[in-house]
């Protein structure tokens, strides 16, 4: 406990001068040294000063212990994805907000606060917090420094900057040997990042390591998330049997654990897997199953509608596809999600026999607007390929090359 800083804080808060506080207790220079934490004062002096400030030392010490307990609790809540409990623990911690700067937990508190903002997806707050923490970094212990790097890595994933996130999180595994509590989470986040970067082999490897950790620590929600990541990467690697196997376990475990919010995501991804396998009828069945139970007005719902409409397009169910793309266009417009408005417009041009217009729209509107959007990378690759194919078939090779990524 930084008792000197605590005294100074409360003295200035109560608008007292040093001489008013020191009067009859000790000299002003002595108080000044105590406040700067440069002198160990005797217990009696401290007691008298705190009495004058109406602070109970016992309360102060108890608060420090309580802050430590709450910080550990907050971390556990976040690691086990207990959203409501995390929110309530965070609110409880706020009661001790003014006390924290005088405890040894000052930086850990701020670092966990960053993790909390990432947990609640308050990315603007997280961004500010990272800037503040980086300015304090020279005072950090090695453990605190490593946590800041790791949480910055998670922030980068959420911002869609996967290469930078990969660099940051991979460095932690190499530089720090004592990852302990965070080991499973680090493996999991690396699996996510590698998956986004289409390095499925690495993603599967880290996913399996994360799975072992979460099994050992009975972290059931994370087990579901890892299974989802594994299934996606098996699917990307064309190891379809393993992917299907993982999805079957996922459906069973999700129902058993009553994590029903994940179900539309799982059905959707089984649709994606079936689509990759070329089994478009089954893909359509799962996309429809997913769309029915999806919470509307979310971006994932739009993605589901898009994949559903696209599968109908593949199956040459032109009328159905037109209805689905029209619905997607309307929903995206209302939600002000411009990429899905653009994608659906492109397909609606095609469905209305305006191929030339569709390609011009693709080249002049879609690709320039998503080129720099990290989260639209997969779509950028897909639409570039369509345009490259188009120009190749037209014999315009120079233009085709431009769109081969």
């Amino acid at each position, binding site marked *: 406990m930084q008792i000197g800083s605590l005294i100074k804080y409360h003295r200035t808060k109560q608008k007292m001068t040093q001489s008013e506080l020191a009067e009859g207790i000790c000299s002003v220079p002595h108080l000044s040294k105590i406040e700067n934490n440069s002198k160990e004062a005797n217990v009696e002096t401290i007691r008298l000063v705190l009495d004058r400030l109406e602070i109970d030392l016992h309360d102060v010490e108890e608060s420090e212990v309580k802050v430590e307990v709450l910080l550990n609790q907050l971390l556990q809540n976040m690691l086990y994805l207990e959203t409501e409990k995390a929110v309530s623990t965070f609110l409880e911690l706020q009661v001790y907000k003014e006390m924290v700067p005088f405890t040894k937990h000052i930086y850990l508190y701020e670092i966990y606060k960053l993790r909390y903002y990432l947990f609640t997806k308050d990315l603007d707050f997280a961004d500010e917090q990272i800037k503040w923490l980086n300015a304090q970094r020279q005072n950090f212990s090695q453990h605190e420094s490593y946590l800041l790097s790791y949480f910055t890595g998670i922030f980068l994933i959420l911002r869609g900057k996967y290469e930078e996130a990969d660099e940051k999180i991979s460095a932690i595994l190499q530089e720090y040997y004592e990852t302990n509590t965070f080991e499973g989470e680090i493996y999991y986040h690396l699996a996510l990042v590698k998956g986004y970067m289409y390095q499925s082999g690495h993603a599967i490897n880290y996913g399996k390591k994360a799975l072992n950790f979460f099994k050992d620590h009975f972290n059931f929600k994370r087990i579901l998330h890892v299974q989802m*990541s594994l299934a996606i990467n098996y699917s990307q690697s064309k190891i379809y049997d393993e992917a299907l196997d993982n999805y079957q376990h996922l459906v069973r475990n999700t129902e058993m654990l009553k994590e029903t919010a994940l179900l539309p*995501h799982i059905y*959707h991804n089984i649709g994606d897997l079936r*689509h990759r396998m070329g089994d478009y009828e089954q893909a359509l069945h799962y996309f429809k199953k997913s769309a029915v139970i999806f919470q509307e007005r979310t971006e994932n719902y739009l993605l589901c509608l898009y*994949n559903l409409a696209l599968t109908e397009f593949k199956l040459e169910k032109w009328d159905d596809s037109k209805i689905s793309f029209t619905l997607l266009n309307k929903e995206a417009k209302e939600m002000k999600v411009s990429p899905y408005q653009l994608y659906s417009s492109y397909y609606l041009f095609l469905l209305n026999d305006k191929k030339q217009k569709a390609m011009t729209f693709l080249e002049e509107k879609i690709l320039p607007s998503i080129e720099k959007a990290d989260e639209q990378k997969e779509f950028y690759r*897909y639409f570039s*390929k369509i345009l490259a194919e188009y120009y190749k078939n037209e014999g315009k*090779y120079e233009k*085709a090359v431009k769109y081969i*990524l």
Partner: protein
Amino acid sequence: MKKTLILLLIIGFASLVSNDVSTVLAAEPAETQDTVAIRPPV
């Protein structure tokens, strides 16, 4: 004669470029998928 030579050179160069382009097209990069999966939460 000189003009014909220049013309032949241009045609030769153009076909060379076109060959290069065909090679690039043949070596298409990693497969792109039609549909996109929903990733698990961060």
